[in-house]
């Protein structure tokens, strides 16, 4: 009996407590930097696309919501000719981000993606590409990878040694 009265009293004291609610549309909750929200394709420090169209994200996606087509630019850079994410299927698991070898695909702290029309949830490449390096500023895939593109030959990447001449017998 006493414990019941005590719990009533303790609940009553909550009258004077601060309320925990965020008044959402007016007052936004702070989202953590690693929040897995809207998916975006980020860019190099030079402004080039990071995505090289390797399909690893599409393979990793458990709900198959990513589709893309890789192609190659005249300068030797690979890029997706189209890149489509169906957000009505996406479960925001972040596997695509983990799979991405070039930090191109990233999940951002933004969840306000509601649409009246389901079709609008299918994001095309121009909707996904953002003018930002996302969570990895300064990372430039083609500058650290050994692949030759126009203006950067084999052996010219950062920390890369010149290629070995396999035809030569000299040490």
């Amino acid at each position: 009996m006493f414990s019941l009265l005590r719990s009533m009293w303790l609940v009553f004291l909550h009258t004077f407590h601060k309320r925990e609610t965020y008044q959402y549309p007016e007052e936004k909750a702070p989202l953590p930097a690693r929040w897995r929200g809207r998916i975006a394709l980020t860019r190099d420090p030079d402004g080039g696309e990071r995505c090289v169209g390797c399909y690893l994200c599409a393979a990793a996606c458990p709900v198959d919501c990513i589709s893309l087509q890789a192609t190659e630019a005249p300068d030797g850079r690979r890029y997706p000719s189209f890149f489509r994410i169906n957000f009505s299927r996406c479960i925001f698991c972040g596997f695509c981000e983990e799979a991405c070898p070039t930090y191109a695909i990233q999940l951002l702290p933004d969840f306000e993606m509601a649409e009246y029309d389901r079709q609008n949830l299918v994001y095309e490449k121009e909707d996904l590409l953002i003018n930002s390096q996302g969570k990895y500023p300064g990372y430039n895939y083609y500058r650290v990878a050994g692949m030759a593109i126009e203006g950067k030959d084999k052996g010219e990447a950062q920390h890369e040694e010149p290629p070995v001449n396999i035809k030569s017998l000299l040490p």
Partner: protein
Amino acid sequence: MEAHYWWVIGGVLFTLLNTAAGLIWLERRMLALWQDRYGPNRAGPFGILIVLADTLKLFFKEDWIPPFADKVVFVFAPAVVVASVLMAFAVVPFGPNIVVADMNIGILFFLAMSSLGVYSIVLGGWASNNKYALLGAMRGASQMISYEVFMGLALMGTVVLSGTFNLGKIVEAQRGMWYIFPQLLGFLIFFIAGIAETHRLPFDIPEAESELVAGFHSEYSGMKFGMFFIGEYLGITLISSMIVTLYFGGWLGPAFLPGVIWFILKTFVFISVFILLRASMPRPRYDQLMEYGWKVLFPLSLLNLLGTAAIKLLIDK
């Protein structure tokens, strides 16, 4: 004289039905307050228009009668609860001279009408032809009938003290001292029985949504469910106003406010206590409830009646 009565009846009905609707909002806001939330605060000032939205929603819901139900009884049952509670309000003195029926058997009338409320639960649960509804109805019937016993016995303490069944006269008899002081035990028993009678939390065993879907009104939808809903809120208001009338001096109070205002204020306090109970209490098991009633409250209420009567006799000698 005739015109006066129509005004009283109209005013009482208007106030009660609006109170019952307003309690939807009040309860949700107060529960939210005690759970450190806001509750409905979007529609209108402080979200009070949630009442309007909720009512409209109830009206536009599909009013489905299950094909396996006993249709006549199914439709009839929700009306009983509202009707019986509203009838019981006829004897409640809201203020000096503001009472629909100034009966000399007011308390008996109140008990009779609140007993009729059981029919709504039993018939509703039975006519639904659904096992959960039936279980809820069974629980409701035994709970309400059991608790009515000591509810009545607890009331008798005030009747002994005031020597009348007339609620208005009982209020008048409390001019010297509110009956909460000589009848503290009676008040506690009446209050607990009142919670069980309105089958409110923690004694909402007929509904018990964690065990019985929604108990006796599992199959109800639309405005029929709304009637049960309103009946429950009216029941809270009725028990609160009866507590105020019997133990807290009804409309008596310092003269700077009219009697009706005092009555409303006091009733509001007890309605809040009902909501606080909902916010803080766990639901007892069904057998615990019955055991508690018959083994603790019943002897206590008898003792209370006996003691009150003995002391009254002693003093009168």
